[in-house]
């Protein structure tokens, strides 16, 4: 009996030890670091105070960076939901052969490095990039539209990176739906758009909501895409943390910014879950 009770813990022990050493300890050390102080001559000092947090929360420069980061994440999430939801539905209705091809197209990019995908967007969006060249050749514009080093360019590339997660989540929800509900609506004379809005959308909602959460939290902490497409000119939280750690070397301040990011992402996730549970209590019962 005693051996039975210990068995799951024995089996989990290697992973548990690894996580205590390699995840819990580093995160606690980072939290402690964020309370330390720093000066450019003496480096990190093991003091304990809130001045890093006061620095971040009292500086409009950081408000701008946090505001931009969450705005980019929010817009990315909205676009992913608006485009990904119908695409997941269309995917479900494709012939098996086309569906397999489309799954490769939708999910394949997930397995290709974000750096490579963002390089593609840099080539597309540059002032002498593919899109501007094409528009110039069609005589639609005289001067290039600025897309590199803008929040809009970052959003576009982030949608490309994140939308597979949304499609996966919505698709999983749609596969649980009963196809008879659609048939019933159709046989009663509903138009396709009505079927989508009144029958499919409510059943896809749990997937849209969970997909939105994934996309939002990943976008808020994305690094490669804003670093390559935004550079020093359009800074977000993760690139700011990177600069504090590897360029300015003010680790305590960088740690404080990172902890604020962690706490705000977690707070948004908890609030979102609460909201969803309250609003859709009936759906999940």
């Amino acid at each position: 009996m005693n051996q039975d009770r210990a068995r799951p813990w024995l089996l989990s022990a290697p992973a548990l030890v690894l996580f205590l050493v390699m995840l819990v300890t580093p995160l606690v050390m980072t939290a402690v670091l964020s309370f330390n102080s720093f000066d450019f001559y003496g480096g990190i000092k093991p003091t304990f105070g809130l001045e890093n947090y006061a620095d971040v929360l009292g500086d409009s420069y950081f408000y701008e960076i946090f505001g931009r980061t969450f705005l980019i994440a929010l817009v990315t999430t909205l676009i992913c939901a608006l485009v990904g939801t119908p695409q997941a539905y269309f995917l479900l209705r494709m012939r098996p052969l086309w569906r397999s091809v489309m799954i490769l197209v939708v999910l394949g990019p997930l397995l290709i490095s974000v750096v490579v995908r963002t390089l593609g967007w840099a080539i597309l969006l540059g002032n002498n990039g593919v899109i501007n060249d094409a528009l110039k050749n069609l005589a639609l514009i005289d001067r290039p539209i600025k897309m590199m080093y803008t929040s809009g360019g970052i959003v576009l590339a982030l949608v490309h990176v994140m939308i597979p997660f949304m499609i996966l989540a919505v698709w999983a929800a749609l596969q649980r739906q009963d196809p008879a509900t659609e048939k019933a609506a159709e046989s009663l004379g509903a138009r396709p758009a009505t079927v989508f809005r009144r029958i499919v959308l409510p059943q896809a909602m749990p997937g849209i909501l969970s997909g939105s959460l994934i996309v939002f939290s990943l976008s808020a902490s994305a690094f490669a895409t804003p670093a390559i497409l935004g550079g020093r000119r359009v800074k977000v939280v993760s690139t700011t943390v990177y600069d504090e750690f590897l360029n300015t070397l003010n680790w305590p301040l960088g740690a404080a910014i990172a902890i604020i990011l962690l706490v705000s992402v977690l707070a948004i996730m908890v609030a979102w879950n609460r909201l969803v549970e309250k609003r859709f209590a009936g759906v999940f019962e």
Partner: protein
Amino acid sequence: MRRNGVFAKLFSLVFALFMLAPLVVVVGVSFTPEGFLEFPPSGISLRWFRAILDNPDFIDAAIVSLQLGVASATIATAICIPAALAIGGGRFPGRDALQALFLSPLTVPTVVLGIAFLRFLSTLGLNGTFWGLVFCHVVIIVPFVLRLVLASVVGLDPSIARAATSLGAPSLTVFRRITLPAIIPGVVGGWVLAFITSFDELTVTVFIVNPATTTLPVKLFSHITQTTDPLVASVSTVAILFTVALMLVVDRIYGLDRLLIGEGSH
């Protein structure tokens, strides 16, 4: 179910073009004979593929990434199999907390994990070491492996293993002859997904490498942020071909949608 109408087909076509465009331009640019990024290329040349051979930095980085991916995926799989058997084997006090802990690297922003590992490893004097990188990657990829292995463990019929035990088989034999063969698709799928995740990882890795352990994504990233020559495109093209080949194999064996959704959808 009704098939898609014209609007749905058009929508899907435009969406597919959007998904493929950045990859197509990267591959296209890599064949340029010129010294700058141009698309469509003015000619077809293998100049920038030959240039990879003259840049041992990229080859070294690719070798580090391969070794790192194999080592971390193997360790992650080895510790996830027993953990998944424990978590999927039935209720016990603390089970939900344990599972939440093992999945938590998905919730923590990667940049936070990056600086946490940097702080930890540099305190121990292990920053930039290969094995330091390996264990950081193990933490990041455990959630992916655990989900896939757990999905196949949950589908197990416990009565078969019980029958083998009652016939006198030692527990290691039961594992090797009964349990492992039954969960092997999830294990293989988990390993591959873990390998790819490790092979592509940038945000955490960029904080904890040194010049000797630079991985391919980090090398590409620092090259892109400093210069723009078609070399990054040709290296990326090789990486894309490698991933596509791996993907097609996985799709045949396990199903790409199953691998990424993490549940039986066939």
